[in-house]
């Protein structure tokens, strides 16, 4: 967590400083600061200045999520073998790396999301940017998968695949929050199994053949 210790000697990037300060506050107190005023004061800033960078705590949390995503992608792309991966392996790689990045921020994430009950139905607003970034990434994978025929094109449904993959990411996140196994091995297994299921469902299957056959019968009866 380098973010926690902002570099004070040079002219600090205020944005980074605010994010780091916020994360640290959550880590220390287990909840977010009472108000922007109090928080800005703690950072030796006035409230007005704060708004130049962020307009709310939600915006900071959103920035944390964005950073998680960027770090994951950067880490992923630095692995040479990533380019050779199939679509399925790319998604696996993404999730495994994401979990590693999440791990660096586990306490922060736990204090913000560990207690919440209805996260399944309700997506916290600050995650939305992360979601849209992921969907862009997922669409690339899906497109590639369709080219290599790993993923079957189906009318209507295949346009929603990015949404399905997002739900999977969200599922993995939830699972990881509750995981108590050594080194989060259970999460690894959950990723492996859920991605395999997702790709098996998206791939060409007996179902497609069945639809095709049914269509044929209908047209020729």
């Amino acid at each position, binding site marked *: 967590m380098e973010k926690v210790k902002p570099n004070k000697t040079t002219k600090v990037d205020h944005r980074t400083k605010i994010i780091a300060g916020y994360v640290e506050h959550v880590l220390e107190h287990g909840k977010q600061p009472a108000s922007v005023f109090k928080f800005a004061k703690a950072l030796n800033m006035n409230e007005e200045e704060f708004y130049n960078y962020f307009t709310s705590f939600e915006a900071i949390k959103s920035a944390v999520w964005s950073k998680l995503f960027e770090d994951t992608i950067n880490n992923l792309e630095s*692995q*040479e*073998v990533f380019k050779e*991966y199939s679509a*399925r*392996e790319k998604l*696996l*790689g993404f999730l*495994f*790396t994401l979990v*590693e990045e999440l791990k660096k921020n586990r306490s922060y994430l736990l204090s913000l999301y560990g207690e919440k009950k209805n996260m399944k139905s309700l997506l916290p607003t600050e995650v939305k940017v992360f979601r849209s970034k992921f969907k862009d990434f997922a669409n690339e994978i899906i497109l590639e998968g369709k080219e290599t025929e790993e993923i079957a094109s189906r009318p209507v449904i295949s346009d929603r695949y990015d949404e399905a993959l997002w739900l999977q990411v969200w599922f993995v996140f939830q699972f990881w929050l509750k995981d108590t*196994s*050594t*080194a989060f*091995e*259970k999460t*690894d*297994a959950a*990723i*492996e*199994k859920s*991605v*395999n299921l997702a790709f098996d469902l998206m791939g060409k299957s007996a179902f497609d053949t069945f639809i095709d056959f049914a269509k044929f019968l209908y047209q020729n009866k």
Partner: protein
Amino acid sequence: MSNKIKEQQSIPVSKVQRAAKFISTGAKVGGNYMKHYAKKVVNPSMTNEQLHTDNASDIYKSLSQMKGSALKIAQMMSMDKNLLPRAYQDKFTMAQYSAPPLSYPLVVKTFQKNFGKSPDQMFDTFTRSAVNAASIGQVHQATKDGKKLAIKIQYPGVADSVTSDLRLVRPFALRLLNMNEIELDHYMGEVEERLIEETDYLLEVERSREISEACGHIPNLKFPIYYDELSADRIITMDWISGKHIKEWMDTNPSQESRNQIGQALWDFYHHQVHNLKQVHADPHPGNFIIQDGDQLGIIDFGCVKVIPEDFYQGYFALIKKELLINQKDLDQIFYDLEFISDKDTEVEKAFFKGIFTEMISLLGKPFHVDKFDFADDDFFNEIFQLGDRISNDKMFRKSRQARGSRHGLYINRTYFGLYNLLNQLKAEVNTTKPQWLE
């Protein structure tokens, strides 16, 4: 080389077949229940005995096919409770087998977790997919500095799930192994202990090295070298041992001398471990032995090692003394020590179990009673299996209110049956050496 590729491709197939076999047995057992209840409607006096027999024979059939001529699990099952760990392990691995192999990204992740480096950074080459399945992991092939290496990677979460998996298979084991609950629980702890040890790869490396060094002087044995700096909690790196499995090797029609040489090496290997080291490679499964050119025997996988406690050792091996079978008083004492009989037994029970165990021991000790024993002799094995059948169908045994036999005997018995079976497969004649105190 071409041979090797073939072998590697054939493994997943048999894995699927094994799984299929297992499922079909499940279906049959289910069918037996149906049949049973259908018959019961017609004939209410019918007992459960018929059902158990039906089940047992179906399971027996499928188990004996499953491993082919390998460990004759089915026969072993009926002959002694030593089968338990094998069956448990098979179930346990079965559960793992139903999972697809680890994806490459997860392999990379496991490496990064353990070494902070990816396999590509650590080795010159590294196969993207597994070349072989180990019981609780998979094996990849790699090269580094011109050396061919085998890298075993454990499935994530296996170590944590041993206990819960055992609990899961318990009801099946009760039915399949045809034993009562008291007996099952008696052995369960032992099995759990071994399985948990098996997930500890660091311990495995340590033991592999210890035993292979201690057995280094035995002629015609080959052990892989283990690499500490390339091994971790979930990863073991060792030399790649190339060669043929026993079955393949036997297909090449090796001469009697060659077979004897391999057989003798195998016997010596176990003799030294049991009597001198007092800890033994307790998994004489054909997959763990590889025969190399020049009739050398390669030994891999020290996941399952049983340490033999001294007092158990004394009692157990005293039984193979020929003249002991005549001396009733000493024999009784040993039976007590090894928990074959206890004070809770009635006189009738005592007499019955003593009789059975004496018969069993004199049969199993047979190779020790001569200087040279021909394991190609199928009659010997048939006799064992027949005795086993008799025991498993005996009411006295099934109704017995207590477990028979020390828990340590579980893996030792399994080791010896496994060894006998391997030697039978090899059709080898070996000098059945004994420690001095038993001569």
